């Protein structure tokens, strides 16, 4: 096959697939079937376009082809007459010359329905993520597998099972309303952020599909912000992702070692993304209501983004934001972060008191950042022997070779008398 045409088809698919699947899902009320029909349309395009060239409106072409498939499918399946007629009528209306415009009006709603369905809590988080990437981002099963570092058959099975679960649970193709909306939206945002974090945790030498997940998540978030502009937490999540993504280049050193936020070269931050993040945060705050967890985290990230140097960081504001976050979602990890902020704002002794208060938390057992943070406070307080012990303990708890090196170096420095207070 002509590789230029192939690349063009791939690009068209990336732009159009979600809309096609969403439109078909509204007609068939079956997300799994919709996705299969859309795939069949893609196969037809792959057969025909290399010879015939790309049609003027490839999206409409694919949609028409998929609708034809749907019609065939229902004829063969000999559905109950009523259903058949309903679908048939929908199809015929769909084939009026202006169907593209007619479709356009609803497509946003359909996309939103598709997102909510793919991220339905009846599915496991992994299944939601895989299905979302497949249905909304147009990724292939193989690409998803590479991105998540799992075998392709595992992802394929995850998707098949997810579709079956949705159909068995009779999950309606709709945007939830009322009381349900809050928890369902949380489920959607969780999936988007999970995809983002999976990409963000990629390290040098990883398959490029992994960091690309960040872009997919950002795109999804930006789409969601357009579809549900009245939801502050959607903007909050977008803001959080934009600001975190802005640090992508600065967060690792020349040999791939992680660079802590405080030590990052701020000129390497991506300022286009910082600006977008701050704008999204403003939208979240303006949309009203109490700040949600994503908006609070974005606000914390923004404090760092707005400081030209680490010394300019408004730590007192960060402490206040962590206070609010800890109230919304109490967790030992949030407490640990809060302790770090407190130590920066009010001194290491205050930070140490907070860490010691949560040191016995079962959730933090085996968490290397606990001794690592504690060691840092102790070092700043001049309690070098205790600090060394903490760094050594932390080194035993992490599996990341580069971090082990870093921690052992710090411990060794304390041992050899190079007791520099940072």
């Amino acid at each position: 096959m002509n590789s230029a045409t192939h690349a063009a088809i791939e690009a068209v698919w990336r732009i159009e697939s979600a809309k096609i699947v969403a439109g078909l899902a509204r007609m068939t009320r079956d997300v799994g079937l919709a996705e299969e029909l859309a795939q069949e349309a893609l196969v037809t395009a792959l057969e025909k376009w290399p010879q015939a060239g790309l049609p003027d409106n490839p999206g409409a072409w694919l949609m028409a082809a998929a609708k034809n498939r749907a019609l065939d499918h229902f004829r063969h399946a000999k559905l109950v007459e009523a259903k058949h007629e309903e679908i048939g009528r929908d199809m015929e209306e769909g084939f009026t010359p202006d169907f593209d415009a007619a479709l356009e009006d609803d497509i946003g709603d359909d996309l939103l329905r598709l997102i909510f369905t793919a991220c339905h809590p009846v599915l496991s988080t992994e299944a939601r993520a895989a299905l979302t990437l497949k249905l909304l981002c147009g990724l292939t099963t193989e690409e998803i597998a590479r991105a998540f570092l799992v075998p392709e058959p595992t992802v394929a099975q995850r998707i098949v099972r997810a579709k079956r679960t949705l159909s068995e649970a009779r999950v309606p193709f709709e945007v939830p309303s009322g009381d349900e909306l809050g928890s369902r939206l949380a489920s959607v945002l969780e999936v988007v952020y999970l995809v983002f974090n999976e990409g963000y945790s990629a390290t040098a030498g990883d398959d490029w599909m992994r960091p690309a997940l960040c872009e997919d998540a950002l795109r999804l978030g930006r789409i969601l912000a357009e579809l549900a502009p009245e939801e502050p937490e959607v903007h909050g999540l977008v803001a959080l992702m934009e600001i975190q993504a802005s640090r992508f280049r600065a967060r690792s050193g020349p040999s791939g070692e992680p660079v802590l936020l405080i030590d990052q070269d701020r000129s390497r931050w991506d300022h286009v993304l910082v600006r977008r993040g701050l704008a999204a945060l403003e939208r979240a705050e303006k949309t009203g209501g109490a700040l949600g967890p994503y908006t609070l985290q974005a606000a914390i990230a923004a404090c760092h983004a707005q400081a030209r140097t680490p010394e300019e960081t408004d730590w007192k504001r960060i402490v206040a934001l962590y206070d609010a976050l800890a109230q919304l979602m109490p967790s030992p990890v949030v407490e640990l972060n809060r302790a770090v902020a407190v130590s920066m704002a009010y001194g290491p002794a205050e930070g140490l008191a907070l860490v010691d208060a949560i040191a016995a938390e079962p959730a933090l057992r085996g968490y290397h950042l606990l001794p690592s943070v504690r060691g840092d406070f102790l070092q700043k307080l001049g309690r070098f022997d205790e600090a060394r012990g903490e760094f050594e303990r932390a080194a035993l708890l992490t599996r990341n070779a580069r971090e082990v090196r870093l921690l052992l170096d710090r411990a060794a420095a304390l041992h050899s008398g190079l007791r520099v207070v940072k």
Partner: protein
Amino acid sequence: MRFMMLMIPKGYESAKPGAMPDPKAVAAMMKYNEDLQKAGVMLSGEGLHPPSMGARVSFKSGKPKVTDGPFAEAKEVLGGYWMIQVKSRQEAIEWAKRCPGSDNEVIEIRQVQEASDFEGNLPPKLIAREEALRGKLERKNR
């Protein structure tokens, strides 16, 4: 990847100061901008006033020389731009194809250079300096 889609409207090189495009074309373009926004690919975009309201600064023999617009020698001038973030050059092209352009309009697609493009071509010190400057500028603009 980031791409600039540069809009080059033929005839704009001689447009009068304050000339604005036809409202119908503006409406179509706004719809297109909305589509880019809704698809989560648009990073930024602006329209530009005609060259007759601008100026050119040239540097022949190292000395800046200012020429007020319009510019007799210019055959193609910019009317505006979009910056988009997409997965491939082909996807940028597909987006450009969806623009409701008129007969006289051309969109040029150019990939935005990123620091990693320079690595290996420029001494690391220079790259760092360039990025530091860029950071400073961006912060000033905020």
